[in-house]
């Protein structure tokens, strides 16, 4: 049988010189020093009770004095950060729209004048003759209108047969904002609570919220597989000028999925002369996602230009 290696057995079996040496320490006696230590402990206890509060303040003071340079550096760094964030940057912002439409002279304006969004005070009419053809040009200023609203108005006007053309012009303005405000302005967050929501409802909810934030060209597909896992497929048109950076947060019972979309502007020249394989590798590296399937990276070559579309599927 293998002998046990436990310390007890070793102690019993090997009464060696080691035990004799250890017994020298065991046999030491310091009890006679206890009264002096007891006296010292009582003194220290008295001091501890009386100066505890005072000691806290002194310690704090000493800490600040000893680490004053650290505090100075921290303050300078924070001041620099605050300064950098407050630097103004110029942003081009749409502050409204102008809609113009044309109608032949003599047609009734009653067809559009009763639209709730038409403000008569901001509507102007002018007559224009082009190649002998006379037309009434209606111009309506819509300050503070969003892209979605204007598109809705356009649809209203399209229903009127007498209107020959409709044009929409955005009213842009250069706005100066601090860096932090600019970053927040170009980023938005969408929160959706998908608990007990059907796939259709969730899809509609996400789509509506994205549209409310000005993202128009969306292709969204929500499906629940046999394991009960929801698959959300979101395709965005990278050429869409309305596309902004956003974060989509979906709560689904106990799970939470966060999908971050960051608009990336890619220099088209960097794909020029590259093979499909090289472009796919560049995209995977750029998106820091080596798991993207090759079929999800579409490479379109048109007139010497290379367009790349990436479909990223997120599973819940």
């Amino acid at each position: 049988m293998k002998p046990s290696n436990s310390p007890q057995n070793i102690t019993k079996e090997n009464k060696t010189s080691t035990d004799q040496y250890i017994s020298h320490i065991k046999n030491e006696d310091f009890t006679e020093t206890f009264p002096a230590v007891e006296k010292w402990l009582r003194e220290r206890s008295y001091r501890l009770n009386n100066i505890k509060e005072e000691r806290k303040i002194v310690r704090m003071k000493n800490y600040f004095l000893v680490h004053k340079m650290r505090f100075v550096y921290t303050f300078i760094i924070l001041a620099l950060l605050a300064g950098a964030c407050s630097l103004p940057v110029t942003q081009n912002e749409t502050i409204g729209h102008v809609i113009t439409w044309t109608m032949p002279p003599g047609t009734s304006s009653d067809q559009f004048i009763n639209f709730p969004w038409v403000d008569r005070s901001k509507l102007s009419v002018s007559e224009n003759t082009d190649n002998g053809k006379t037309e009434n040009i209606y111009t309506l200023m819509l300050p503070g209108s969003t892209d979605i609203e204007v598109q809705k108005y356009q649809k209203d006007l399209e229903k009127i047969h007498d209107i020959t053309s409709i044009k929409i012009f955005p009213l842009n303005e250069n706005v100066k904002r601090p860096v932090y405000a600019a970053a927040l302005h170009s980023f938005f967050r969408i929160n959706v609570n998908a608990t007990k929501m059907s796939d259709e409802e969730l899809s509609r909810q996400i789509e509506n919220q994205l549209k409310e934030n000005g993202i128009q060209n969306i292709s969204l597909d929500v499906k629940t597989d046999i394991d009960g896992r929801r698959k959300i497929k979101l395709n965005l048109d990278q050429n869409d000028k309305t596309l902004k950076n956003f974060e989509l947060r979906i709560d689904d019972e106990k799970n939470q999925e966060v999908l971050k979309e960051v608009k990336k502007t890619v220099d088209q020249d960097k794909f020029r002369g590259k093979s499909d394989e090289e472009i796919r590798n560049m995209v995977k590296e750029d998106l820091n996602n080596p798991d993207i399937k090759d079929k999800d990276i579409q490479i379109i070559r048109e007139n010497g230009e290379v367009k790349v579309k990436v479909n990223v599927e997120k599973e819940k």
Partner: protein
Amino acid sequence: MPRDTNRFIELLKPNYNDAVKYCRALCSKRSADDAEDVLQQSLLQALEKFDSLNDTDKFRSWLFTIITRVFYTSIKRYFWRRFIPLDKGERTDIPEIYNRTENFDSKALINKALSKLSNKERSAILLFEIAGFSIEEIKNIQNEKSDSAIKSRLSRTRQKLKQIILEMESNHSGKLNITSKNIIEDIENETIKLSAEYNKGK
């Protein structure tokens, strides 16, 4: 709330001797001053935290846990003091406890042998041998997860300590032999000189 110093001292008294021995042997690599420094810090910490000890039956293991942790902290402080001139902190004002005179007896030999062990090994063997703690208690004091870790540490340490002591003993006896041989030679020389002088005088 005033600290119950009387109760603390009452509980400390039966454990004092072992605590002092443990502290000195733990600091076997260092001076008596350093051992007293560790003891002072441990007793003050224990006194300050005494109100938080709910079960006074566990006072002994609680006190030895504090000593062990203060010792580990002091090791780190010694390490950094070699590079940065740190403030030494509170001056040791505990009454003198340990003997400062160097001796070359068996006690010195075991202290030297203990100093060759790692801090954890030294702490484990002393808690087992000097303070008489069980494997379970040592596991808690040393903040380990399994009994087997402590068992194997103790077993390994005993073997190591035995080996170190054997080596030291053989070196020590070698030194003694050389010394005795030299003395005998000196005596012989002196005897020859004296007998020569004696014969001259005659």
